[in-house]
């Protein structure tokens, strides 16, 4: 019988000494015969392919807003040295550029979830190493896993919560979370890759990948025990082959992609995106029946505000007030352009008709304006109330102040009386319900 008079501190020490024999710290607690260096390395390789794409397309979204123009274009105003990409001129061609990059960012970002979970499953035993660290260096390295694992979940879920308008993000600035959260994740990831990249390469070299992928369940053997902590010392019978497990993880990613990609492929495909928040097809087939982010009613636009008394205030060297009829009397041009939202959905090309922005710049007496500010009548969403664009966006012959779409007047929801539409520019920057355009000299 145990001596109860032992001091408490002795009891704790004893408990600590016993940790390696307990639960997940025991090597035989982990029974899957699939786990091992090769399997973990393969999962890492998948992530190492997908994460950079999601990271870079995310940075592209940051640049696409032209944050250096200030105002609402800069969603993270005091980013300091993290704004090192600020100032790059976002191009207007190809016209589908933002549609492609943002669609990829959102769809692949969602598809990361099963890959991350698969990878975590594969390396779980190594998180329960005892002692927790063998040196100061090792301790710092292991603490940084908090940034990697916590960070990737943080990024995936803030993104998912944002596109679904989850109530938990109400009154929280999503852009701050997703932008700075990204850098916390990347900080951890750089160290993790630096340390583990050689381990991953060794793991992959240990076995012939195509041979491993050809093995059925009955041929699946545990990896050799001496290859480290990931391999179980008491492996169970396999119930699935390694390629089966990889197919399950990859199939999960493909399922999520397949159910999300329709939101960015256009009208017919959006039927496939049955769980995406903004992918439903609008009833009807009229010229204005394509998706909006926000209706006129929600934005607080009344018929009176958009009625015959509406005037466009055009500010440059001079200030003019133009009625919609006066705008329609100017040379009209047609641009076939998509709407692409930062939430990842986009529409196919729509035929917008209206006045070229560069003609309006001339009319305002500033044909070489370096910058322009669009202001909207809307009340609800401060991010969409104003938008800045730069010289190349004003000068593009496809950039319009649109008055009509697909052969009909703009509907109220699409920004009647007038909205801007500029190629390759985020939907949110294309201001709806415009009431003032101010051309400025300097960018």
């Amino acid at each position, binding site marked *: 019988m145990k001596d109860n008079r032992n001091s408490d501190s002795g009891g704790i020490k004893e408990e600590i000494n016993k940790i390696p024999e307990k639960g997940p710290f025991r090597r035989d607690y982990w029974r899957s015969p699939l786990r091992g260096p090769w399997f973990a390395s393969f999962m890492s390789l998948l992530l190492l392919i997908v994460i950079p794409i999601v990271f870079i397309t995310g940075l592209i979204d940051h640049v696409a807003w032209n944050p250096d123009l200030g105002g609402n274009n800069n969603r993270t105003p*005091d980013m*300091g040295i993290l704004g090192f990409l600020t100032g790059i001129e976002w191009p207007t061609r190809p016209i589908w550029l933002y549609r492609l990059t943002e669609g990829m960012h959102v769809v692949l970002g969602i598809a990361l979830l099963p890959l991350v979970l698969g990878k975590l499953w594969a390396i779980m035993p190594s998180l329960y190493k005892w002692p927790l660290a063998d040196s100061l*260096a090792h301790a710092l390295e292991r603490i940084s896993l908090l940034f990697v694992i916590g960070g990737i979940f943080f990024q995936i879920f803030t993104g998912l919560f944002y596109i679904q*308008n989850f109530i938990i993000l109400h009154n929280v*600035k999503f852009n701050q979370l997703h932008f700075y959260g990204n850098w916390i994740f990347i900080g951890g990831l750089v160290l993790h890759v630096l340390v583990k990249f050689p381990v991953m390469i060794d793991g992959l070299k240990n076995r012939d990948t195509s041979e491993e992928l050809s093995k059925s369940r009955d041929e699946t053997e545990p990896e050799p025990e001496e290859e480290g902590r990931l391999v179980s010392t008491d492996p169970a019978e396999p119930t699935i082959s390694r390629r089966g497990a990889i197919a399950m993880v990859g199939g999960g990613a493909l399922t999520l992609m397949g159910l999300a990609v329709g939101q960015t492929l256009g009208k017919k495909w959006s039927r496939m995106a049955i769980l995406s928040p903004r992918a439903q097809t609008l009833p009807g087939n009229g010229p204005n029946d394509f998706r909006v982010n926000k*209706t006129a009613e929600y934005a607080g636009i009344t018929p009176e505000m958009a009625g015959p008394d509406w005037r466009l205030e055009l500010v440059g060297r001079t200030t003019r007030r133009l009625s919609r009829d006066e705008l329609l009397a100017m040379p009209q041009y047609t641009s076939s352009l998509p709407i692409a939202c930062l939430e990842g959905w986009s529409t196919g090309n729509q035929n917008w008709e209206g006045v070229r922005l560069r003609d309006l710049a001339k009319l305002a007496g500033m044909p070489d304006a370096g910058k322009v500010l669009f202001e909207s009548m809307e009340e609800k969403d401060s991010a969409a109330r104003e938008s800045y664009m730069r010289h190349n966006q004003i000068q593009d012959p496809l950039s319009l102040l649109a008055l009509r779409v697909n052969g009909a007047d703009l509907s109220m*929801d699409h920004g009647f009386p007038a909205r801007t539409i500029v190629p390759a520019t985020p939907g949110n920057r294309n201001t709806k319900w415009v009431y003032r355009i101010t051309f400025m000299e300097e960018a």
Partner: protein
Amino acid sequence: MKKIPGYGRSPIHLLGVLFCYSLVTYAAVKLFSNVSLWIALAFPAGIALHDFILFPAYRKANHFLTDYQVKREKQGKTSRRWINHIRVPVVLSFLLLLCYFPIILRLVADQRPKNTGLSQDSYLYRWLIVTAVLAAGSALAYFLRERRSRQH
């Protein structure tokens, strides 16, 4: 490469650690000067949620399934392994729920259709339908394989 005494890893490792911690500190200071410090809890909470709830739950569920399968096989009551025909639809359906639970469970701010002109009421049914299709597809695949193996 040579280890730094008292540190325990190579100089490159130290450079990596310095880069990592300075970038993370800088980004964290910027983040928390803009949003509440409570958000920081999301990092350990995400890990805790995975390691102490999600992982043990699916580990238990999986052991239950495998044990049952093995028992049935020993009794000679089942010829073909059905376990992956359960795992696959359950995993996929769960993944979809994990991604889209805010809209499925209607935990959405301002879900009135006037926001986007689209109704968001039907997502629970949409998810249930996808789950039903996955389950039916998996069951069908099982019976087809079963029949084919009997014919041989």
